[in-house]
């Protein structure tokens, strides 16, 4: 076969791909897809029934809220939404591993982590509705703003962690990113800085198998967690759809960072059940059978099975959680619809902390321009 014809075949791209470098990875698992508890030689967890039910509740709420956001986008209430469907365990497990004094640096898909940090889901929707570009006080919940440029936040997390170490605090920092971001220079630089300064940061990679349309094998030839070794710190791959394993591994990684051992990389092996965003069409590049395969590993279903089989929760509980999540969705729906558009003059707000003559001048000019409509026909129509 000539080179040319190979190129032509691949560029035609008729065949859809199966995502995921390494189909049968070594990973830490404490709860099988069937809902059976298994033990792991290095990582263990012992939760009370109430804690287990709490994780279930978190995941159901997150999924319900996420689904509501997708609907709101379809109804035109949001401009865009990046769904986390399928990644609930990776986010709830890791988020619940953090302490209040820890600091979280998310991407734009960490809705479940935000929930565990106490960020009101409505706050997350502002930027997707287009009423702000961030919209919450990061220091209120130690949850930084969503970061859209891929991988940038890994460096912010590392710098923040360097500061934590300088302060002599025993907090840890966690940086979220995805399999696509693992190709970014900023992530590699973050690994380098974190390693040489021994910064207390956990790099939490949700490998959801797809960076929009590109499978993980387009990003890496080795499992992502193995990259840590080259930088001189430990890496571990965990079943990202197993909330118990994610919680156990992330707790250990954060403890590793807190105890002065430096950074650690956690690769949560999971799957993006939805499209990249509401603007994406995943049917163009991946197979339904792959999605079905991952649906059988659903993070919520497996915990539900475990809770039911072990008699840790009954139908009343599941029904309550369902009802509460509906109430949450209702609150979100109504809250988004009531979210006002910002005033035009808000364009000039908070550009500088110490002021700037040009901003002052343009603000005054724009205010005068706006005022010129007042009382006129156009003004009345505005």
């Amino acid at each position, binding site marked *: 076969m000539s080179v040319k014809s190979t190129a032509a075949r691949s560029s035609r791209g008729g065949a859809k791909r199966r995502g995921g470098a390494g189909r049968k990875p070594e990973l830490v698992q404490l709860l099988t897809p069937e809902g059976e508890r298994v033990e792991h030689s290095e990582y263990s967890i012992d939760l009370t029934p109430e804690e287990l039910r709490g994780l279930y509740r978190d995941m159901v709420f997150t999924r319900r809220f996420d689904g509501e956001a997708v609907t709101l986008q379809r109804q035109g209430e949001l401009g865009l939404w990046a769904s986390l469907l399928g990644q609930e365990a990776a986010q709830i497990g890791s988020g619940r591993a953090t302490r209040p004094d820890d600091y979280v640096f998310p991407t734009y898909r960490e809705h479940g982590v935000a929930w565990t940090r106490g960020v009101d889901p409505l706050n997350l929707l502002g930027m997707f509705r287009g009423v*702000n*570009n*961030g*919209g*919450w*006080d*990061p*220091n*209120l919940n130690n949850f*930084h*703003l969503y*970061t859209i*440029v891929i991988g*940038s936040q*890994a*460096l*912010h*997390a*590392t*710098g*923040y*962690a*360097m*500061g*934590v170490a*300088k*302060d002599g605090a025993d907090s840890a920092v966690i940086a979220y990113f995805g399999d696509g971001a693992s190709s970014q*220079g*900023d992530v590699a*630089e*973050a690994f*380098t*800085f974190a390693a*040489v300064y021994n910064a207390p940061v956990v790099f939490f990679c949700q490998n959801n198998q797809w960076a929009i349309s590109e499978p993980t094998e387009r990003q890496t030839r080795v499992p992502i967690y193995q990259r840590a070794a080259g930088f001189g710190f430990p890496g571990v791959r965990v079943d990202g759809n197993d909330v118990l394993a994610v919680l156990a591994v992330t707790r250990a990684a954060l403890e590793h960072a807190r105890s002065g051992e430096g950074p650690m990389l956690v690769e949560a092996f999971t799957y993006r059940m939805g499209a990249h965003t509401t603007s994406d069409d995943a049917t163009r590049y991946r197979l339904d059978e792959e999605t079905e395969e991952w649906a059988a590993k659903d993070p919520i279903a497996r915990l539900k099975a475990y809770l039911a089989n072990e008699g840790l929760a009954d139908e009343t509980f599941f029904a309550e959680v369902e009802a509460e999540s509906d109430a949450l969705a209702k609150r979100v729906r109504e809250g988004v619809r009531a979210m006002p558009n910002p005033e035009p003059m808000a364009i000039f*707000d*908070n*550009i*500088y*902390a*110490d002021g*700037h*003559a*040009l*901003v002052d001048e343009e603000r005054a000019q724009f205010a005068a321009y706006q005022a010129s409509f007042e009382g006129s026909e156009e003004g009345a129509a505005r």
Partner: protein
Amino acid sequence: MTSPKTMTIAKAINESLRTSLETDPKVLVMGEDVGKLGGVFRVTDGLQKDFGEERVIDTPLAESGIVGTAIGLALRGYRPVVEIQFDGFVFPAYDQIVTQLAKMHARALGKVKLPVVIRIPYGGGIGAVEHHSESPEALFAHVPGLKVVSPATPSDAYWMMRQATECDDPVIFFEPKRRYWDKGEVDTAAVPAPLHRARIAREGTDLTLAAYGPMVKTCLEAAAAAEEEGHSLEVLDLRSMSPIDFDTLQASVEKTRRLVVVHEAPVFLGTGAEVAARITERCFYHLEAPVLRVGGFHAPYPPARLEEDYLPNLDRVLDAVDRALAF
């Protein structure tokens, strides 16, 4: 009370950083080779010895990493002053500066501050190899959220660095590297002018030369030469490219009625273009001639053997002065 001391621009920045490190425990100095070596220009000489490796930090050789981690440190409450070793090496960090540093205060609705100073030795005239002689200031002045300044004298180097370090916004601090060894008086007990206020470096009546950083000296030399020919030129040191002090500039041009803007950076869409547009708008009825610009060409910075031809010098400035006066 200390009396004014004579020192170089490099030493003035060093003294300024020393004062900031002494007075504010949150100030950090970061960059490649800023520690034992004292930076390739020795601007941070002795600082690590006196303030330790925890505060004067040698970083890995990765500019995006330097700025990105400085952002994180600022979010933690620190005030990092980072060095980019040369102008041409800032671009790996450009993404962090433009997409993150500049916008984060606004994105957080004002709830976080980003007091990060990025020091960049810039400009040509030192016979360097490629990427060591550039003037990218307009690329930063164009970005909302950043402040951009450049001192021309040791006194300004000292005080503007002090003010930049105390500023709660990100400041890109362009240091005129070919003037690092120029000497002047620094009064560390003085009351400095505001950071973004332009300075009349020389008074005159016939035409205003506006410049900043390394070109201020060139313009002063041009004004001295013009005086011999009977022309009185005012030299205005802008000091700040974002924001630009158009009020001081306007007052000068209303007096002299002619303006020539000089910088090393390419003229096309440069600082001079903005100055020309704004001053034309503000001083339309006062101008006797169009605002003229002297600066770099739309060409890559040339090899060192050609840089004397490329850089604005006395003759090129005076040529523009003659053309403006001929209107």
